[in-house]
């Protein structure tokens, strides 16, 4: 007959209570004892069964020790002790499994988010199939409130999509034609037709799930040490118990020592904290690949950043417009129209800026001539214009006034690329373009400093001027410009030698060697680059770099939590052993304290799940 653990515990508890009532009212002492023995058998049966099955494989576990102790207690007539020990042992195990489930809950919640149905167009008809059956190239239809089941490209419609399963960011993003969507994200409003690019196990979401799953059981160094420790600890307790029996001939004390000295709380102390920490990270779009990495992340002293795409957006943008003699809007319009046919990144930046300001211009130049490496000569509404760099101006002999020259020099010094515009005689204006700094980068650097990071460094392949401007704007300690990928690796080695543990932060596109050679590789925007997600140790799923300081805070909180658990478990174990030897702690009370300590360790770990939520945690994050 199979009785659930919970029912068994309850039944045993009831029997104990009845027995107590009978005993205290002195109604029937014999019956009271029978009830007590029954309680011990109900709770003790599965323990004994497990013990015997383990013995078949010559394994002496805690079950065997408890069984031995209970049989001993029954033989010497300590029925209450026998019932209490089995009851507490089962109750403890029951409560521990419940609380342990809690520590694993954020990861389980993530797993539950996997899409379970997919609507595709087959032979012109919409059919609902299991997401595993979708093949690459299928057209998938998603309606409001539904989950996207593939990674793909939007071929029709637009929608607000909640991407929190991937990025941890719950504010919906607007996506339209040609937009990339991810499996596991939810369409909040709108209607989409998507071409499936990656399906099933290949989707970003499936990869994240797999990595989070694997990460949980990648052991921390501390954990490995504790496991080694318990390998020696248990046999030494057994020897101690045997010696104790030989010298004192006191069976009860020896058995008690055996049972309560089990290092349960100690061994569980690390994995529970780690799993809660990783779960918390996963919920906030921070993927930390294992306990070992969690420990290393908390100890990082130096952070080296890649510039383009990490601290900056990676896309040039118009940062400033200066007109001489005409209106600024007019200048931008002329330039944008002039650049109509150009696909140069700088031209795109100008056109984007114009369309943001004025909408679609719907005008084209009558004539357009490309002057390679210098710019363009165009005719708009009968007027000739030159749009290009300084070289174009010098060559064409355009007059630049003192005031204009000062302005351009200043812009260039700030890392801007300047586009000159003229009407073939005078300079009409200058448009400054630069790769813009990410909005949250400045805040991140500040947070990192207040978190006690010793050095924040920027390693970039870009030119000296741009690097200097950005590092000054962000408050970066040191920068190294014009580096080749292998030079980044060399610089990292120097930083490691000089300042200690160094992490490299990049978008993973071109700094894979650096990410791999640092003490820790951190990739940002992981959802969009799968390679980075696979090679880095820590992955920030979204583009928000400020999550990095959250990740560091979380890892420190996790390591702290782990240490609290370890110290607590050691103190309790030592106190119990001393208590038993000093005859203050007995079998049942020892079991109670032992089980309580295990529970407390788990509950302490559960606290980590709340890290970063609400007001209280904001204070924690900024520490």
């Amino acid at each position, binding site marked *: 007959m199979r009785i659930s653990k919970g029912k068994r515990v309850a039944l045993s508890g009831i029997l104990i209570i009845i027995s107590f009532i009978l005993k205290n009212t002195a109604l029937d002492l014999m019956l009271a004892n029978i009830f007590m023995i029954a309680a011990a058998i109900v709770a003790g049966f599965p323990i004994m069964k497990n013990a015997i099955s383990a013995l078949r*494989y010559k394994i002496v576990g*805690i079950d065997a020790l408890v069984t031995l102790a209970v049989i001993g207690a029954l033989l010497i007539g300590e029925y209450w002790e026998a019932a209490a020990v089995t009851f507490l042992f089962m109750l403890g195990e029951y409560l521990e499994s419940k609380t342990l*489930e809690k520590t694993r809950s954020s990861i389980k919640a993530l797993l539950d988010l996997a899409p379970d149905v997919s609507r595709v167009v087959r032979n012109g008809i919409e059919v609902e199939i299991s997401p595993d059956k979708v093949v690459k190239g299928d057209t998938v239809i998603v309606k409001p409130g539904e989950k996207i089941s593939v990674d793909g490209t939007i071929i029709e419609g637009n929608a607000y999509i909640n991407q929190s399963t991937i990025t941890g960011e719950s504010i919906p993003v607007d996506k339209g034609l040609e937009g990339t969507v991810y499996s596991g994200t939810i369409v909040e409003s709108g209607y989409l037709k998507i071409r499936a690019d990656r399906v099933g196990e290949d989707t970003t979401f499936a990869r994240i799930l797999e990595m989070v799953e694997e990460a949980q059981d990648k052991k921390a160094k501390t954990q490995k040490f504790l496991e080694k420790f318990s390998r020696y600890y248990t046999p030494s307790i057994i020897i101690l118990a045997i010696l104790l029996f030989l010298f004192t001939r006191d069976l009860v004390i020896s058995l008690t020592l055996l049972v309560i000295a089990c290092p*349960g709380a100690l061994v*569980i102390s690390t994995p529970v904290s*780690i799993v809660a920490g990783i779960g918390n990270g996963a919920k906030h779009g921070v993927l930390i690949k294992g306990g070992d990495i969690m420990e290393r992340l908390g100890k990082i002293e130096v952070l080296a950043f890649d510039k383009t795409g990490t601290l900056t957006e990676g896309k040039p943008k118009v940062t400033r417009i200066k007109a001489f003699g005409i209106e600024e809007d007019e200048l931008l319009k002329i330039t944008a129209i002039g650049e109509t046919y150009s696909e140069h990144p700088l031209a795109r930046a100008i056109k984007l800026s114009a369309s943001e300001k004025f909408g679609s211009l719907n005008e084209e130049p009558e004539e357009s001539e490309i002057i390679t490496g210098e710019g363009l000569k165009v005719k708009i509404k009968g007027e000739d214009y030159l749009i290009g760099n300084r070289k174009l101006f010098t060559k064409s002999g355009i007059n630049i006034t003192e005031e204009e020259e000062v302005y351009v020099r200043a812009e260039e010094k700030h890392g801007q690329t300047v586009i000159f515009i003229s009407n073939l005689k005078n300079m009409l204006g200058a448009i400054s373009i630069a790769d813009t700094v990410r909005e949250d980068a400045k805040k991140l650097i500040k947070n990192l400093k207040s978190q006690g990071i010793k050095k924040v460094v920027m390693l970039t392949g870009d030119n000296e001027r741009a690097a200097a401007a950005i590092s000054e704007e962000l408050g970066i300690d040191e920068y190294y410009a014009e580096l080749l990928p292998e030079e980044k690796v060399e610089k990292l080695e120097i930083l490691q030698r000089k300042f200690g543990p160094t992490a490299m932060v990049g978008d993973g596109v071109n700094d894979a060697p650096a990410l791999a050679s640092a003490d820790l590789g951190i990739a940002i925007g992981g959802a969009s680059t799968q390679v980075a997600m696979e090679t880095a140790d820590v992955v920030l799923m979204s583009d928000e770099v400020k999550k990095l300081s959250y990740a560091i805070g979380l890892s420190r909180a996790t390591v702290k939590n782990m240490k609290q658990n370890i110290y607590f478990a050691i103190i309790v174990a030592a106190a119990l052993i001393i208590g038993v030897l000093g005859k203050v702690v007995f079998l049942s009370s020892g079991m109670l304290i032992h089980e309580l300590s295990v529970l407390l360790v788990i509950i302490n770990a559960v606290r980590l799940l709340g890290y970063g939520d609400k007001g209280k945690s904001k204070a924690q994050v900024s520490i």
Partner: protein
Amino acid sequence: MITKTYQLETLTCPSCMAKIQGALKKTEGVKESEVLFNTSKAKVTFDESVVESKDIKNTIERLGFEILGEK
């Protein structure tokens, strides 16, 4: 030689891990076994000409652990 992953009921004590691992190690035909505590999974590599998946499941279940699924 194949590798299978068995999803077990929630493991509560790390000593269960040692127990399952020990028992699997002593099972003939099992080449490698790893019990994952946090995910409550057992990863077993075995020679299917010597031992069947059914036998491995039996071994684990006889130790008192329910098997919820296999992959």
